């Protein structure tokens, strides 16, 4: 009898371990939809003369994040939770560690690493859309690595790691990465845009703006819906699967996957409705869904679902005015990434501070609070903006950031891509330049 109980206990434990692997494996697979979506979104938002160059750039972001996150990204996450001095905990993330490869005594490292790789690649894809049609591919890849395998993951080590100083000292709460990914990536993009400059033809000599129309809005819409699908994998992977016990969020607080189901769907729909009600424009409706999720993301585990819905509406409402503001400032964000991710992310982080203070944290970490969220937000803003601005400034100074004006005029596909997107199309090289309203 004792032997049978021991055998059943061992079997049950192994089943739980394998379930853990399966859960994160499929979350990772679903997250790849984010990249399929961004690929379609960016190509659709490009003019026909740049469509393949935009696609190639996006694909390369994913491709280069994977090895660089193996080389040093995972180590950064594990080594820096206490600040800027690397700790011994980083040893398990070194690229030659026993945990960083097939290992029968470690079922978790590979699937966790993979999920984080997809988080990292998501940050790079967010940034990617903002800079289409005038950034050099090589410069973009360097900046994507800087964002995905360095800046974001350092912020995550501080604000998402269970020993991160933002949690331990301030009780920072950001379960769905409103700040960690969306503020960091959005403001990284803003820092780059300041150095990169607008696309040729975006602004007139008197400062007024033109709309450089997307060549395929249906592709944009399908891409954005794919991103939404991917975010269900993303948000699922933000939970910790504890075999034989209740789920916890990334901070170790008890949570349920059901809470994410309620609130993700409610804020998603709120975002669409908010954007539709204020713009009637399908180009903004699906980003509205994303913004709705991001405004609710930080507290996705605790919101009363109708509150998540209202937060989603706020996200859907603010993105178009946010992007219009940037245009008035002379900033050409081709897909509205700064507004959709950066501005919504700010609201998401602070929504917890205003509407969800007082939730206890494990151990000695303080409860969630307005000040904790504010400090975390400032850290995320700096991580994103400073790294993006300085990285792009260095490339600009070296003269390798921006595609020359003449190449922009004829189209990046003709200059860089050895095949044609629409070889039988008539007039595919013509510019779609019309005055903005």
């Amino acid at each position, binding site marked *: 009898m004792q032997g049978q109980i021991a055998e059943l206990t061992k079997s049950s434990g192994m089943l739980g371990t394998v379930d853990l692997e399966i859960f994160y494996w499929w979350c990772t697979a679903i997250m790849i939809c984010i990249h399929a979506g961004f690929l379609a979104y960016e190509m659709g938002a490009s003019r026909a003369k740049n469509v393949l160059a935009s696609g190639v750039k996006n694909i390369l972001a994913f491709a*280069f994040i994977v090895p660089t996150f193996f080389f040093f990204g995972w180590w950064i996450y594990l080594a820096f939770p206490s600040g800027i001095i690397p700790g011994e905990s980083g040893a398990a993330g070194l690229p030659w560690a026993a945990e960083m490869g097939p*290992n029968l005594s470690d079922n978790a490292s590979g699937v966790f690493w993979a999920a984080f790789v997809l988080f990292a690649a998501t940050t790079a894809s967010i940034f990617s859309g903002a800079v289409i049609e005038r950034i*050099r*591919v*090589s410069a973009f890849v*360097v900046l994507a690595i800087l964002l995905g395998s360095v800046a974001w993951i350092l912020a995550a080590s501080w604000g998402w790691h269970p020993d991160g100083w933002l949690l331990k000292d301030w009780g920072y709460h950001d379960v769905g990465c409103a700040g960690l990914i969306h503020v960091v990536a959005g403001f990284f993009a803003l820092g780059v845009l300041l150095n990169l400059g607008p696309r040729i033809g975006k602004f007139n000599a008197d400062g007024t703006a033109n709309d450089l129309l997307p060549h395929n809005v249906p592709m944009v819409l399908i891409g954005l819906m794919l991103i939404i699908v991917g975010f269900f994998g993303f948000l699922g992977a933000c939970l910790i699967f504890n075999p034989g016990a209740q789920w916890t969020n990334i901070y170790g607080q008890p949570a349920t996957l059901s809470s994410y189901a309620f609130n993700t769907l409610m804020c998603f729909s709120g975002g669409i409705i908010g954007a539709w009600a204020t713009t009637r424009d399908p180009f903004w409706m699906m980003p509205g869904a994303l913004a709705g999720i991001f405004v609710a993301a930080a507290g996705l585990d605790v919101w009363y679902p109708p509150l998540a819905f209202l937060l989603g509406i706020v996200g859907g409402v603010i993105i178009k005015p946010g992007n219009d503001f940037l245009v008035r400032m002379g900033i050409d964000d081709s897909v509205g990434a700064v507004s959709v991710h950066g501005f919504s992310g700010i609201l998401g982080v602070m929504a917890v501070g205003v509407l969800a203070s007082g939730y206890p944290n494990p151990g000695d970490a303080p409860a969630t609070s307005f000040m904790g969220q504010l400090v975390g937000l400032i850290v995320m803003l700096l991580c994103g903006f400073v790294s993006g601005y300085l990285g792009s400034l260095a490339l600009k100074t070296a003269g390798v950031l921006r595609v020359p004006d003449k*190449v922009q005029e*004829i189209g990046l596909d003709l200059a860089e891509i050895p095949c044609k997107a629409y070889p039988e199309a008539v007039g595919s090289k013509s510019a779609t330049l019309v005055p903005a309203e």
Partner: protein
Amino acid sequence: MHTSPITTWDGAAAYFTFADKPAVLYVILAAAVIVTFGTIIMAGIHEIEAFKKIEGKD
């Protein structure tokens, strides 16, 4: 090439190729790093030359 670090699955932990030969791991890792960043540098050089050709067509 014999690359297995184990001779039995009993008690095996890290079993990836060359897991018991750190020096070989470092060489392979260095090669992977060089290829990764080398292709970016090559792409940058290619872009500079391609753009110069187009700009020189005036």
